[in-house]
């Protein structure tokens, strides 16, 4: 495998494509020319990019969340309900976890079982099994754009079918997928499959179809913002190289507003800087925000408080998408009522907020921005150094070396040496920075912040404190 950051030629792409489409019987339904024509026939309100653009223009953020049922009928019922009752502007297809592992045979069983039982026994919509024709029925039934949501080491067939079916945004994120969505797939493999799907998106773009990729870097529980930000920055360079033109950055916030806003600000700024440095000049970016996925509250009173905080953060960060979990998140897969109810609340909160100029103390934001920017530069510079300027090569080495790392990786080859913890104000800091290439200034800053909380709590912060941090939101507090 030639793993440098270079655009796949059309030849390479189409050769690989034959193998991809052969993975499951519905692969043969995909006809790129037909799909491009279909996309061009979609009205703008069914396309993600113009809808996100509209959100940006109006300073509004639209609620988004996962939505997935086993059958086409159930999926249509779910999405139309959320549109109508939840006043949704932006819909999603959450892919079930069998499909995420490319176990289409098991997904097929799940569909059959769901039909028999009359209720979905899958935790998402099996895009591949339903094929292009299946999803076309869904996109025809709704009035809003639909984005894919999943994490998969090999998302190639999902994307081929998903985009041909009429999705106009996706979730191809190699590092996220490597760290969190598989335990036994090598990073090289994940990067290669993602290069393919980014090239697929690039192909659509070359033919005048705007698709919005997205990138979060890593799942954020227990992780200070510089690490996911570095993971985003290295990846958007890979995406851009393959021809991706529209990217939604997703940040997982921790509820400490100065830190959250600083994260959004610095990310937008550095992304522009790195695009420019590598010569990608026409990328349009969007932002989404969600509370970091820690334990969510079981009881609805506090669950609504989380929706509130998520919406406030999205507003303050200037996000176009308010990526929320429903108030039933801690209970299990939400019902359509749960989702609609939550969406409506978020919509009305947003209505009340959208024209208001409120802001977090600018000095606090600046202090956080300065730190996170320094940290990110340390990491990304090291990645590029590792790759002699090539971001793919550098990323692979950096992940091995723990220069890009994660405390809760599923993949056992990951060093998992870093660990974050909240300071006394609720901002997240490095308790352990593992092999992150930080300067002494940075380390001192984090140490001091942690000492402040230790002083307040009268004890050393340890793994126990971390547990309480992970459970804090479910108990309705920012930090205990």
């Amino acid at each position, binding site marked *: 495998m030639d793993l440098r950051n270079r655009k796949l030629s059309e030849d390479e792409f189409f050769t690989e494509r034959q193998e991809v489409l052969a993975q499951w019987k519905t692969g043969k339904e995909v006809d790129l020319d037909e799909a491009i024509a279909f996309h061009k026939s979609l009205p703008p309100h069914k396309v993600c990019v113009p809808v996100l653009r509209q959100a940006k223009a109006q300073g509004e953020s639209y609620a988004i969340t996962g939505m997935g049922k086993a059958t086409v009928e159930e999926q249509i019922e779910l999405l139309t309900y959320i549109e109508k009752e939840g006043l949704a502007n932006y819909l999603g297809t959450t892919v079930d976890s069998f499909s995420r592992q490319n176990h289409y045979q098991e997904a097929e069983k799940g569909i059959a079982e769901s039909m028999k039982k009359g209720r979905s*026994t899958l*935790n998402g919509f099996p895009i591949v099994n339903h094929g292009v024709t299946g999803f076309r029925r869904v996109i025809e039934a709704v009035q809003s754009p639909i984005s894919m949501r999943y994490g998969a080491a090999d998302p190639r067939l999902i994307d081929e079918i998903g985009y041909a079916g009429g999705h106009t945004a996706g979730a191809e994120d190699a590092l996220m997928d490597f760290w969190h969505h*598989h*335990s036994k797939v090598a990073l090289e493999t994940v990067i290669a499959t993602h290069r393919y799907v980014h090239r697929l998106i690039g192909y659509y773009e070359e033919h005048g179809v705007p698709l919005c990729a997205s990138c979060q870097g890593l799942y954020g529980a227990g992780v200070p913002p510089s690490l996911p930000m570095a993971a985003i920055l290295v990846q958007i360079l890979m995406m851009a190289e393959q021809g991706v033109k529209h990217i939604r950055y997703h940040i997982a916030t921790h509820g400490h507003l100065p830190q959250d806003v600083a994260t959004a600000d610095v990310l937008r700024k550095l992304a522009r800087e790195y695009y420019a440095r590598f010569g990608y000049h026409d990328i349009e970016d969007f932002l989404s925000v969600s509370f970091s996925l820690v334990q969510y509250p079981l009881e609805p009173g506090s669950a609504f408080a989380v929706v509130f905080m998520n919406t406030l953060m999205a507003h303050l960060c200037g996000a176009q998408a308010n990526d929320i979990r429903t108030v039933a998140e*801690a209970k299990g*897969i939400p019902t359509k009522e749960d989702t609609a109810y939550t969406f409506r609340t978020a919509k009305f909160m947003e209505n009340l907020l959208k024209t208001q100029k409120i802001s977090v103390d600018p000095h606090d934001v600046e202090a956080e921005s300065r730190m996170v920017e320094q940290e990110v530069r340390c990491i990304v510079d090291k990645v590029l150094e590792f790759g002699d300027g090539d971001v793919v090569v550098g990323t692979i080495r950096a992940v091995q070396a723990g220069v890009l790392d994660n405390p809760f990786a*599923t993949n056992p080859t990951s060093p998992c040496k870093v660990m974050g913890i909240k300071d006394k104000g609720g901002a997240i800091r490095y308790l352990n920075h593992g092999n992150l290439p930080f300067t002494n200034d940075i380390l001192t800053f984090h140490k001091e912040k942690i000492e402040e909380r230790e002083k307040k709590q009268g004890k050393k912060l340890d*793994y126990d404190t971390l547990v309480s941090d992970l459970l804090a939101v479910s108990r309705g507090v920012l930090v205990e």
Partner: protein
Amino acid sequence: MNRDKTSKRTLVTGVIGEDVHIVGIRILEYALGEAGFKIVSLGSQVSQKEFVEAAIEVNAGAILVSSLSGHAETLVPGLRDRCIEAGLNDILLYLGGYLQIGETPWEETEKKFKAWGFNRIYPPGTSPGKVITDLKEDLM
């Protein structure tokens, strides 16, 4: 099989099936380790076969299975039989996480999974302290 106290205090942990949710089991591993248990962690996406093999290898007192994806109903039946087949006659089987999709009363869920041979079943929000107490009691 002759099992001394030490091996009894050895626990095999992991997340079953295609499931990647790792945080809960990592937290438990930490707490159990602090409480003096020896942990053999298999991480996530572990098959029944891998659980049983590891339990034999370290002569474990219990297997702690985590499942959050909502697919436990199809993933865990048969584990008890495999253990018996492998000669792990008195090994404890604990199961915890988000055990099914939809809103079934907890008592039903518990009954169902106990019938599949699990000694104890834990819902989301379980405190690690509770698991420690139960293990100490069951392993006495």
